């Protein structure tokens, strides 16, 4: 028994252009689809929870893969979570739990709600004092901008590596080195960058780096993680079964088990493993070059039309935010989707503060590309948008 085929809804009967990769990448590479099918058909490797043998240890291999992408020699310090939001919650709340007393935290106006909401919650509860730093006119943050905001009790800085609205990428290593001189812990939100652009934390300038698997690492939804340099700085906020040290009624403190309680998302981890392999075999520089070329082509074509109001004309990540003069962005997105089969995202993209600066919080239409997109798809989007503008 199962769901009858006619009740499994399909949308693949009409071709469409998918430009919503900053939310979730699609299509997934064949190797990702195949490995997920495989782990759903075969029993999974479950460390310490099964006598099953001769099956692939995807968790260890995916951990090593993330370690290679980040440039760390310590893959055991890579922890699996549900997604970047889950990682950031564990890191932010865990840091506050580990450091008693009220202290000062800095973040920026570019951040996603996965950063802002945990921090605002802690601020509301009186656990932290929060400063939201205004990024520069080029949507970058520098040590010179951070310096005046630092107080004697500043202990934490939470920084988005790449903006999901503007596509700016921060020099996190430069910022990290500056913060370390002041004794400030740096948590980086790398949801938009890992797999899409070079990330290197080998110099130890970043204390914690959160990532997700379902965007530019081409895994499925529900898998993400973080790298943590020093586990002494972050208290664990979850406890439970680990498949190891079961006699101990307290949760293990060794890495990565300290932060991994309960059965893992094995299909997600396997998809992450395959996605990492895809990224590595494609080459991150080639991925970045391809998407940069497509973005430049889109921007150069769209900006010729004055009715297309582009917020970011030189993005470092493959995201383009724009509005169409005289048309609500939600309406424009709906028309692009329904009349032209072009999938975008509209609204605030879960990053409300930067939209206040851009256009008083009205939001935008966002095109976000991946390595899988083509110039022909860009042409289809350009034609549709220009037709919408010119009527």
């Amino acid at each position, binding site marked *: 028994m199962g769901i009858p085929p006619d009740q499994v809804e399909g949308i693949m009967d009409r071709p469409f252009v998918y430009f919503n990769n900053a939310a979730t990448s699609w299509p997934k590479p064949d190797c990702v689809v195949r490995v997920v099918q495989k782990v759903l058909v075969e029993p999974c490797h479950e460390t310490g929870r099964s006598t099953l043998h001769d099956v692939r240890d995807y968790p260890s291999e995916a951990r090593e893969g993330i370690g290679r992408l980040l440039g760390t020699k310590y893959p055991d310090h890579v922890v699996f979570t549900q997604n970047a939001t889950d990682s950031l919650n564990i890191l932010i709340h865990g840091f506050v739990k580990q450091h008693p007393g009220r202290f000062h935290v800095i973040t920026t106006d570019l951040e996603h709600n996965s950063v802002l909401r945990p921090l605002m919650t802690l601020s509301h509860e009186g656990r932290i004092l929060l400063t939201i730093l205004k990024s520069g006119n080029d949507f970058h943050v520098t040590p010179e901008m951070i310096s005046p905001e630092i107080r004697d009790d500043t202990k934490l800085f939470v920084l988005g590596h790449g903006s999901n609205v503007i596509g700016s990428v921060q020099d996190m290593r430069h910022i990290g080195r500056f913060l370390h001189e002041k004794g400030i812990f740096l948590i980086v939100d790398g949801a938009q960058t890992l797999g899409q652009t070079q990330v290197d934390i080998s110099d130890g300038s970043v204390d914690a780096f959160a990532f997700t698997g379902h965007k530019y690492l081409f895994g499925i939804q529900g898998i993400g993680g973080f790298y943590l340099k020093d586990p002494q700085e972050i208290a664990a906020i979850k406890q439970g079964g680990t498949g190891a040290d079961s006699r101990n009624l307290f949760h293990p403190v060794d890495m990565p088990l300290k932060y991994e309680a309960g059965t893992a998302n094995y299909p997600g981890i396997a998809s992450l493993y395959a996605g990492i392999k895809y990224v590595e075999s494609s080459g991150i520089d080639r991925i970045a070059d391809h998407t940069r070329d497509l973005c430049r082509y889109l921007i150069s074509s769209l900006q010729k039309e004055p009715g297309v109001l582009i917020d970011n004309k030189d993005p470092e990540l493959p995201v383009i935010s724009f509005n169409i003069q005289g048309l609500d962005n*939600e*309406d424009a997105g*709906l*028309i692009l989707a*329904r*009349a032209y089969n072009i999938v975008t995202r509209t*609204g*605030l993209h879960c990053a409300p503060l930067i939209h206040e600066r851009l256009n008083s919080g009205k939001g935008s239409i966002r095109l976000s590309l991946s390595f899988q997109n083509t110039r022909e798809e860009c042409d289809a989007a350009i034609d549709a948008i220009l037709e919408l503008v010119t*009527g």
Partner: protein
Amino acid sequence: MRKSRRCIDGTVLREYTLDEPVPVGIIGFLEQFGTVKALADMEQPFYTFRMGDIFNIKGMVDDTAMFVRYQPASMSHTEIFFTRLIEGFDTNAPDLEELRKMHGELIEKITSVSSGGL
């Protein structure tokens, strides 16, 4: 008619998939109950219907999808009205008198909700 839901900026957005694409007559029909704006020059005209701040409908002619945004506090009343509205339009001879009566009652109820009466 099937529906899915998403919450955006405090309002509730529901997507309804109709059995048949809506013809262009939907625009004139909706005008009787609120403000309609349409991009009529498009090959597949886009329309928005607004009944004050109570709820709005967006969609395209010749499409099966309708996107309806509700205020959460009054949604239980407005969704019933929306359903009747579309069911009424589906019939060749909608009972306009009945729909107008419902429309008036809905506005009365919403006013009552917003003033704390319900």
